[in-house]
């Protein structure tokens, strides 16, 4: 029983990471039909930003320093996202395949750039001692870091939903995802939201990177790319453009992965996820909460 609780909370922590990576991806795709293959690079960039803050300000106590690291990671991700949209993606609107190709090249170059700067060996990140301690929960000892990742992911989910449902920008984004041509026909300048959505996606992925450095005990250039594949699977299972769908799918995918890895055989978890995707696509091609077929 106690191991089941541990696996579940670990799985939910992983779900938090998937959600942070996938929600931005899903919004970007839902609004502008851009499949952003450079999204994993935002994740890694956030991880390195967090690592850099933890590494260089060692006079500050670890807890506030980590808070600062998360903020820095989010900022780096947001700025990277905005720059990529403004500088590169914007030039290619109307040509989806070229946009996908552009993000492939970008992801490739960004990962190699980080590899050239930080080497391909994982950088271990300083963590507050409190992260490694455990909390007793239904008879299981849960590492605090898992609970923290889960908590941050939930806060981000709530904040994102509040932004989408409660603000004018959020309204425009939702309208754009729902029906881009109708929104445009009603005189809404959807294109102005593109930068916001990209920055938002970068912000979420950057924060995900900082937490990923905690979850995986370090950060390497290709970490984001590895997670990106699962994030894609989460996006498709959840339904493109649907934030609640992404959250549900993230939990589903992460728990499947962790349970199969621990109860069936190590390494089979990822394959089970791929099978899950195939089944969802055949039974419900638009995803769990998606409205239209991609």
């Amino acid at each position, binding site marked *: 029983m106690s191991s089941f609780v541990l696996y579940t909370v670990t799985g939910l922590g992983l779900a938090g990471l998937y959600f942070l990576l996938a929600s931005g991806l899903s919004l970007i795709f839902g609004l502008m039909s851009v499949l952003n293959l450079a999204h994993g690079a935002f994740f890694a960039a956030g991880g390195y930003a967090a690592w850099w803050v933890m590494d260089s300000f060692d006079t500050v106590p670890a807890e506030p320093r980590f808070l600062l690291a998360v903020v820095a990671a989010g900022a780096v991700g947001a700025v990277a996202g905005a720059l990529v949209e403004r500088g590169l993606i914007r030039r290619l609107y109307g*040509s989806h395949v070229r946009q996908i190709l552009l993000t492939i090249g970008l992801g490739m170059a960004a990962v190699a750039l980080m590899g050239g700067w930080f080497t391909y060996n994982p950088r271990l990140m300083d963590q507050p001692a409190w992260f490694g301690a455990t909390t007793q929960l239904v008879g299981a000892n849960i590492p605090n870091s898992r609970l923290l990742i889960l908590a941050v992911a939930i806060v981000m989910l709530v904040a994102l939903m509040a932004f989408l449902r409660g603000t004018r920008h959020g309204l425009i984004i939702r309208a754009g995802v729902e029906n881009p041509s109708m929104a445009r026909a009603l005189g809404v300048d959807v294109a102005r939201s593109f930068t916001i959505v990209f920055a938002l996606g970068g912000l979420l992925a950057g924060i995900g990177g900082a937490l990923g450095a905690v979850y995986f005990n370090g950060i390497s250039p290709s970490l984001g790319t590895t997670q990106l594949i699962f994030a894609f699977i989460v996006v498709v299972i959840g339904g493109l453009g649907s934030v609640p769908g992404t959250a549900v799918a993230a939990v589903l995918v992460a728990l499947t992965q962790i349970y199969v890895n621990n109860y069936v055989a190590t390494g089979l978890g990822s394959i089970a996820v*791929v099978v899950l995707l195939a089944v969802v696509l055949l039974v419900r091609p638009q995803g769990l909460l998606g409205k239209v077929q991609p």
Partner: protein
Amino acid sequence: MRGRIALGLTVLVLALLPLVPIGIPVVFTGDFTTPGTLQVLASALVLAAVAMSYDVVFGYTGLLSFGHALPFALGAYGTNLLMIHVGLDYPIAIGVMLLGHGVLAVLVGSLALRTAGVAFAMVTLAFAEAFALLVLSDPLRILGGEEGLPIASERVPDLFRGVVNTQNIYWLALALAVFTFLVAHRVVSSRAGRVFEAIRENEKRVEMMGLRPSPFKLAAFTISSTLAALAGSVYLLVVRGANAGITTPDFTLAILVMVVLGGAGKLWGAAIGGFVYGILTLRLSAVATSDAIDALPGWLSGPLSEPLFVLGVLFILLVLFAPGGLSSLRLRLRGA
């Protein structure tokens, strides 16, 4: 006619290359007769073949498959497994592998083609990723995991065995590239090939004109996969084993990059893209660690010695400014 002469001349030059004791300094360590240089050229030729095979499904039919590493890896692993565990000789193993792969390609293709567009990309990615993960976790302990699966040399004909015969392996790779070009060319210039291009341009319209697109899409998918599997079986010989790297999504993206680099929808464009990409990835790091780059400050020399950084930037520039790839540059120059 001019195309045929150009093709013949290129093949002739490439075929005579292993006999010429001259080299290109910096790019290659030795002249064209040395095994090291010939191996680099042979893998570049195999990549040219796999790029052409991908061009059939992506460039001509417009299907954005993110799983083209799968048939290539199946070709390499399948042939090797048949040699190791069934004891078949190399040529027979290739034949059996192609048959088995063909059945699999039709199955995977008919499943994946139930979706379209980005979802199709996802499903093909998922299938390829499943195989990549299978190789890494290796539950039956027969795939070699991360280390890869060294070739069963005793099943390979003497002609292609060992470093001494690198020349012959190079010629085999060249033959593969030529064969792939001829088959792919035959396919895309056939009547079915016209339908492929029509599907790429406007699938609905093809339906309106009374043709069912799905069998054509499946045909393009299967032919393209089969050519990739064949290339995989030659790659097995060139690098003397099947390595986990060719199963990954990164490799699929690399194939996509090769085709776009050269020019999608043109076979010789894809071939040049694959060839150039192969040489760049294998030799760029050697060029980039040369003295000129080492003299630069660390923040610049670090990334510049990463082949994928240079390739990625080059690729972004091509997508932005020359979407037709390298092969369109020539036309542009001529047009200007």
